[in-house]
């Protein structure tokens, strides 16, 4: 049996307090969210939350263990800093979805805006549509799977993490390169597509990752640095 929160009558704080006090196995339904911020943020128990409608900023932020399903769109910072568990949305997410995520799974049925997976640290992200510019910026660990296209500067300054794109990539960011799709990557993508309940031919994906050229300062570059300094340019 599930508990229903109607945000027309209940406050957001009442909802989130109930979620923070919940036990493993509890189930919740949330109605009339109307773009409210921080819906279902800070969950730590293995609960199930069904959100009916579009949410505002930081929905399911700092998420752990449970599952949040949102039938609608999400604004900035969906599942930001997710640690574990799963967050699914049927529609589009705007900027910085799954930012800094350490673990767990984030599934976006539609498109994701700019900087999807920025500074991701282990989260798996599956996007049914396209991702905006600078997605996986400074990514450190985890997987970003994009069934559609990626906008400019994909994977800019990426440390590690794997990016898989089925469609076109407008441009790769600094130090991000295309890499071989090996059997272990096929397995990863297959598993994550199944977990996301999305259907695609794994062979259609290209893999991108770090060229690892930005890890250290290269002493060989010192001459160029000095020359630039003499010319008054900043590097």
């Amino acid at each position, binding site marked *: 049996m599930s508990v229903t929160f109607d945000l027309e009558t209940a406050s957001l704080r009442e909802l989130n307090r109930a979620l923070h006090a919940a036990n493993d196995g509890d189930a919740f339904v949330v109605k009339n969210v109307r*773009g*409210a911020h921080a819906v279902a943020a800070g969950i730590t128990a293995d609960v199930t939350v069904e959100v009916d409608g*579009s949410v*505002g900023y930081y929905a399911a932020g700092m998420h752990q263990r449970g599952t949040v399903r949102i039938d609608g769109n999400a*604004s*900035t910072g969906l599942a930001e800093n997710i640690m574990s568990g799963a967050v699914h949305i049927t529609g*589009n997410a*705007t900027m910085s979805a799954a930012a800094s995520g350490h673990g767990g799974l984030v599934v976006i049925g539609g498109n994701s805006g700019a900087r999807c997976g920025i500074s991701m640290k282990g989260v798996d992200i599956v996007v049914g549509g396209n991702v*905006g*510019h600078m997605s996986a910026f400074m990514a450190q660990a985890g997987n970003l799977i994009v069934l559609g296209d990626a906008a400019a500067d994909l994977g800019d300054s990426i440390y590690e993490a794997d990016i898989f794109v089925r469609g076109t990539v407008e441009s790769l960011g600094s130090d991000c390169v295309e890499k071989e799709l090996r059997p272990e990557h096929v397995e990863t993508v297959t598993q994550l597509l199944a977990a996301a309940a999305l259907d695609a031919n794994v062979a259609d994906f290209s893999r991108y990752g770090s060229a690892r050229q930005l890890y250290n300062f290269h002493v060989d570059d010192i001459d160029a640095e000095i020359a630039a300094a003499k010319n008054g340019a900043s590097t």
Partner: protein
Amino acid sequence: MCGIVGLFLKTEKYRPELGRLTKVMLHEMRDRGPDSAGFAIYDGGTDGLTRITVLAEGQRPDWGPTRDALSTALGDEVKVRPIEDHAVFETSGDGRIARQWIIDNVPNVDVLSYGEQIELYKSVGDPDLVASRYDLASFSGTHAIAHTRMATESAVTTNGSHPFVTGADTCLVHNGSLSNHNGLRARLEQQGESFQTENDTEVAAGYLSWRLREGDTIDAALQQALVDLDGFYTFAIGIRDGFAILRDPIACKPAVVAETDDWVAMSSEYRAIAQLPDVQHATVSEPEPARIYTWSLAA
């Protein structure tokens, strides 16, 4: 921060309620800009008459002498309608001349807007109080642009509040901050633009005003703005028969657009749009960076 609201009514259905719906949206953006607010309403016009909205901040002057002197200067009948510390002059004379005459001859008065369609109100203070003071809910019309301000680049003053006028029936609101506004202001002053504040958004408005005066279409002017304006911005621009949106290429400042058969709505956040009738049937999307969006009654 700052909050932006734009509502464009494609059909007659909600036009009598334009002000009420805009007020509801503005209320939702209150947290994003609690220090000032403003709104521009486009009401379809009254048979080619030009209206000039002016502000005498915190005062209730007797506008009669100004009206009579303006009438003499224009050689045309002028009516005036005071609303709190604002007033709307109405004339069949030349709007540009009327605007300049007021700037040159009436001390301590700011001209907020001029055109055949637009009226513009703004003030410091809680956005809900600003909306009530100028009775936003009572307006009908085709489209509206509104703004809640959290000041960053210049002081909290009424003339630093948005919207800013960029020409006849054209205005601009901004979420973000421009980093090259001082240099650009000097350049625009050489081109004959005049500025009343230290505000960065006024420079963006002056920039568009200059481009439009040079003969650019709104599309061409915004395309060039992408080259010449440096900084963060989501702009909503009210034009005579519609509105336009532009976000900078980095797109840090939010924007969301929703459209139904009857309306197009734009806001900084979805929660403003979530209040509109029939929103459950709207298509909702995020405007892409560095792309110009326009909606027009003529289309």
